[in-house]
């Protein structure tokens, strides 16, 4: 074969390859008739980072909410595997406010599953617009993302089996502890371990249900997590009475909806939604629905009255983050 011809053809193929490397978005869009009806987003903006979430939602016709699988009762899957929870309800309120603000009631709400590990990159990457789960507002995370006002206040404790005889953190010396990767609790526990030289053997896991399972099956003796999540895991366990949540708070963890950084307009809207919920007292109804009533899928009641910390956060809404190492220095 002649060199020239092969060169030419290969060049054509190569440019084709580059083209399909560049624009994977349009093809999938065309495959989805429902979406192609929405106005096509054109490449007009020069700024690479998304700093105008409202415009993004208006252009694409979709608001994307990140949800968790097993952060009960904040954001989890119910009996029909639909995302529900206290946080999900609040995110839906935010979606309603966006629709009202843009005057576009037909904006679609899309739920995207995230994990402790993926939530931040997915948010900054633009695959979700807001996450209302069990995400602690930490100073470290504020380098990457922004937070709306605190909507729940909790902190790190551990869950153990009653039969294990563990009474406090120092009993964990040399034992195996499971943690969910990417959580603030992981950091608080590790900082405590380093400080007290407990020589704990850590095993990582992907989500809270899996971590709790490690305690349930005896692979690990303890699981450090925000106490509210531990109580809900305990309540949903096969034999709730086998477990006990112990310890003083290793860290303070204020939860808040997470949004992209550097987007003051969207932050103002989200802040406003929470502010209204707090001022009108509607938050109390929402709280009672998820923390003091029977919740899906199993109809358990967490019976978890509102803490002083949360009452304070509702009275004076704030988006102050916490440090990275719990109550330890680092």
């Amino acid at each position: 074969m002649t060199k020239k011809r092969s060169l030419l053809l290969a060049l054509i193929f190569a440019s084709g390859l580059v083209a399909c490397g560049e624009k994977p978005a349009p093809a999938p869009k065309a495959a989805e008739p429902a979406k192609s009806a929405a106005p096509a987003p054109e490449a007009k903006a020069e700024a690479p980072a998304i700093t105008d979430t409202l415009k993004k939602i208006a252009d694409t016709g979709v608001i994307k909410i990140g949800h968790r699988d097993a952060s009960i009762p904040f954001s989890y899957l119910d009996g029909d595997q639909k995302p529900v929870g206290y946080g999900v309800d609040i995110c839906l309120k935010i979606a309603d406010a966006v629709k009202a603000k843009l005057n576009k009631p037909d904006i679609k709400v899309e739920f995207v599953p995230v994990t402790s590990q993926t939530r931040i990159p997915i948010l900054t990457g633009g695959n979700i617009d807001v996450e209302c789960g069990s995400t602690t507002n930490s100073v470290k995370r504020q380098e990457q993302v922004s937070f709306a006002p605190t909507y729940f206040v909790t902190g790190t404790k551990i869950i153990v089996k009653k039969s294990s005889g563990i009474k406090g953190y120092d009993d964990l010396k040399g034992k195996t502890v499971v943690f969910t990767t990417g959580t603030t609790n992981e950091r608080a526990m590790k900082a405590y371990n380093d400080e007290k030289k407990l020589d704990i053997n850590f095993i990582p896991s992907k989500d809270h249900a899996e971590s709790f399972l490690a305690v349930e099956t005896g692979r690990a003796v303890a699981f450090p997590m925000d106490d509210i999540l531990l109580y809900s895991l305990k309540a949903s366990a096969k034999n709730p009475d086998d477990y006990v949540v112990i310890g003083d708070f290793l860290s303070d963890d204020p939860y808040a909806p997470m949004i992209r950084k550097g987007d003051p307009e969207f932050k103002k809207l989200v802040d406003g939604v929470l502010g209204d919920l707090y001022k009108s007292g509607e938050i109390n109804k929402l709280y009672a629905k998820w923390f003091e009533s029977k919740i899906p899928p199993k109809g358990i009641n967490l019976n978890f009255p509102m803490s002083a910390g949360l009452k304070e956060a509702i009275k004076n809404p704030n988006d102050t983050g916490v440090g990275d190492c719990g109550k330890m220095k680092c």
Partner: protein
Amino acid sequence: MFTGFDFDVIQKSLPYLWQGMQFSLGLTLLAMLGGIVIGTLLALMRLSSFKLLSYPAGAYVNLVRSIPLILVIFWFYFLIPVLIKKLTGNPYASGIGPFYSALIAFTMFEAAYYCEIIRAGIQSVPRGQVSAAYALGLTYRQATTLVILPQAFRNMIPILLTTSIILFQDTSLVYVVGLTDFMGAAGKIARRDGRLVEMYLFAALVYFIICYSGSYFVKTLQARYNVGRN
């Protein structure tokens, strides 16, 4: 041994598992098609006598083939949005969604593997066929698309299909980014209801049936093709 084995939990979650299966099958089929198309381009580039084409293609294929799929999934899942944004200047292109992110990751990963199969397939076509095609006055494009590729693909079909069955198995790895494919759906129910034994064994059974029938089909196909050749 199977005391308390609860088949009910499987039955109740069948619709959700089916949704997951659709995700797995859709991902497999689209990644297979995309992978074969891009793999063919890569193979033609690698076989090109022009180094500017053959070297980058070779480097890409060798690099991708030397790293774990999970790492590739992480690369694409977290960094493709950034890359697309930079390349196209379209700030929303990043919101392509988890399915398409996974699809791009698998397509680009599998393309490297398909490329090597296709390259070997193209090389297995006797030189004489190429010479004959040129002697008849066909252009490079005509010779490639009308003479070489049809024969090459005919030889390659069984191994391309076998690779695709492995691709189907590999799609379960989207677990690492929390997506709900068949295995993801099974795992989510397993952990929520504390029914790991049932769900994981059921998942294994389903995968086995699909993959075994798939490879059985490939074997029959191979036998049929071989008859004509020998």
